[in-house]
């Protein structure tokens, strides 16, 4: 039987094994018997993390005198909060008692006790119940009197947070609660897995909340992201202002958008309705908004041609927005009387319920033009194929890469990704909106430059050898570019 202190020691060793990068190596080598603990790190300090949401701290310590000769890693602990200590003690107590109860059962039924539970005699049941109750009582008394029940014991007070390799003398602790004060402890782990005494920080510290969360990539990479956002938004705003000054901006022809008027015209000539499907997501999805900007144009053209546009929606809020959009489009076309709000209606939130309705409606009413603009999933091909079967002219636009091939295969025109988002600017022809497309192009230039830079550096690193000084620096630069700036 494994006694509690031994079990605790084993669990701590296993914890360190699993927590750090050196764990795998240790697991392969196995656990040696001899114990030659290294000296503890002489000094340790904890600093609040600059530019974070108040949940991180940076721990630094001085090298153990035995590092690297007899140190393979450092184990980093943080103090538990009172609530965490109480919870740990409660959980440990429950586990301890459960273990003793199982042992009592084993003592009566033997090692195969689990298989015998269904065939117990009434007397055996009574005996086992009594033995388990007695064992539980004894275990509870033993636990309450022992060190495991002591909130001040090191095991209860400190929680293993992670580990670093030998010679790595700093560590970032995350997921802290700024309402609590924490003490940190570092132990040097010897090559024989024995641990030094703990070096503990002098005073408790609480992480503080800063105005800007610029934590590095491991915690979100927001420092670089804010720069990317500022550069990109700055470029878009610059080009919008540039366009406002009347500078000409050229945009290539997008066939799918050129065909909108043609499709509505065809429906008018055939005396059949147009069907507009704004995707299956709600108004908080940017694709739905982009789809509705196209609806504005379709509705306006339909109002001018006196065609009927039917908009079944999968979300109530989308229905309301579409109604406002179409009404305003009819108003701006000078045909407010022709607007019929009953043509824009809610069907269901259920994906395939919505598809079933649309397919049935398409087969029955045979719309002459079908527009699919928004977020689509598996329903994309069902809709597009049904539209194809009824001979409708179909224009689709989505930013779901997995659905694009289906639309391309089954529709007459497809707005692929960014074309879909450019639709509003393209259709309105407004210089301001066209200017934003130019700003978008700058973003593409930046991405292209970074890609060329990364590819160039990686190629050079492999040419000079990644182990050489230059190769190592180039690889590190690429890693920084990839993991910090682009992530």
């Amino acid at each position, binding site marked *: 039987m494994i006694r509690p202190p031994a079990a605790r020691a084993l669990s701590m060793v296993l914890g360190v094994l699993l927590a750090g990068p050196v764990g795998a190596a240790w697991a392969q080598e196995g656990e040696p018997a001899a114990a030659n603990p290294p000296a503890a790190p002489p000094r340790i300090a904890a600093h609040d993390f600059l530019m974070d*949401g*108040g949940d991180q701290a940076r721990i630094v310590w001085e090298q153990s005198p035995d590092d690297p000769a007899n140190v393979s890693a450092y184990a980093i602990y943080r103090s538990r909060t009172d609530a965490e200590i109480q919870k740990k003690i409660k959980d440990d107590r429950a586990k301890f008692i459960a273990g003793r109860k199982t042992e009592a059962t084993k003592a009566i039924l033997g090692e195969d006790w689990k298989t015998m539970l269904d065939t117990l005699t009434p007397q055996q049941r009574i005996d086992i119940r009594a033995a388990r109750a007695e064992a539980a009582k004894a275990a509870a008394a033993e636990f309450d009197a022992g060190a495991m029940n002591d909130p001040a014991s090191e095991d209860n007070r400190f929680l293993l947070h992670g580990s670093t390799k030998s010679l790595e003398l700093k560590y970032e602790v995350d997921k802290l609660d700024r309402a609590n004060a924490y003490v940190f402890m570092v132990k040097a782990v010897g090559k024989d897995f024995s641990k030094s005494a703990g070096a503990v920080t002098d005073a408790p510290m609480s992480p503080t*909340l*800063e*105005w800007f*969360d610029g934590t590095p990539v491991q915690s979100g990479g*927001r420092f670089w992201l*804010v720069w990317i*956002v500022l550069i*990109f*938004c700055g470029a878009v705003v610059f080009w*919008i202002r540039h366009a406002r000054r009347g500078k000409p901006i050229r945009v290539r022809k997008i066939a799918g958008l050129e065909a909108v008027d043609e499709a509505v015209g065809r429906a008018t000539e055939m005396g059949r309705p147009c069907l507009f499907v704004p995707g299956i997501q*709600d108004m*908080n999805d*940017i694709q739905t*908004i982009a789809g*509705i*900007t196209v609806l*504005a144009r379709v509705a*306006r053209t339909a109002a001018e041609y006196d065609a009927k546009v039917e908009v079944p929606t999968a*979300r*109530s*809020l989308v*229905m309301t*927005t579409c109604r*406002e*959009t179409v009404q*305003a489009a009819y108003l*701006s076309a000078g045909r407010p009387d022709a607007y019929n709000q*009953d043509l824009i*209606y*809610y069907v269901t939130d*259920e*994906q*395939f*319920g919505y*598809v*079933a309705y649309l397919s049935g409606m398409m087969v*029955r009413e045979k719309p002459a033009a079908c527009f699919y603009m928004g977020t689509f999933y*598996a329903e994309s*091909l*069902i809709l*597009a194929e049904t539209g194809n079967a009824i001979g409708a002219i179909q224009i689709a636009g989505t*930013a779901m*890469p997995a659905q*694009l091939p289906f639309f*391309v*295969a089954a529709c007459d025109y497809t707005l*692929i*990704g960014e074309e879909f*988002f450019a639709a*509003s*600017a393209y259709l*309105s022809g407004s210089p301001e*909106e066209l200017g*934003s*497309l130019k700003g*978008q192009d700058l973003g*593409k230039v930046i*991405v292209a430059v970074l890609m060329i830079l990364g590819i160039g550096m990686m190629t050079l690193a492999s040419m000079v050898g990644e182990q050489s000084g230059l190769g190592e620096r180039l690889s590190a630069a690429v890693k920084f570019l990839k993991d910090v700036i682009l992530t």
Partner: protein
Amino acid sequence: MKRTAPMIILALGGFVLLVAYFIPYTQGWGEDAALWFDILAAIAFILGGGNLLKIHLKKMSDKVPGWGYSAVCVASFLAMLTVGLLKIGVHPNEQFPDYRWSGTYDQVGSPFWWLYEYGFKPLTATMFAMLAFYVASAAFRAFRAKNFEAILLLGTAFIILLGRTFAGVFLTGFIPEDSPMAGLKLENLTMYVMQVFNTAGNRAIMIGIALGVASTSLKVLLGVDRSYLGSGEE
């Protein structure tokens, strides 16, 4: 005012969410804004249900062609709504056995669960299953060798489809794994096409989409793009 107010609300909500990502002090505001959307969406369910009833009852009363479908829709809607809201046939929760309505409406074995499991789910599964046939018909049309690009597409599709089946492995099984020609084994060729050409194309589309999303969001937040309100003109 009818258009200005939504634009102000939208801009405020959008910028609060944006700022909350970078400024920890405002994280709560972002969560509040998201909560408001959830509240609106929940209320909108009533709007949606009301609209559904109105549209289909009107179709039934006008006896428009296909009004029978509307009757089925309304009946199904009301049946599910009644069974779910009144918790018909639901057993009380074990912790509150004295309260008849303490069980969950969708507990296993309840009428609502039964209707969902044996009525609704098979119907949606049927719709989803139809996708297989649509894939076949779309593939047949897409892979017709009309021009050079279509031939290229057909050839690539042929390699990918074969490479993902045992037939592909069998057909090029004679090429030794360690020979310089091993790259021509269909399963390796498939892997190469998927990992190199397909990934490159996908990434190009994804970069365009990401920039498009950011640009569109900015246009909407700044009020430059007002076409979702019907027209850019006031």
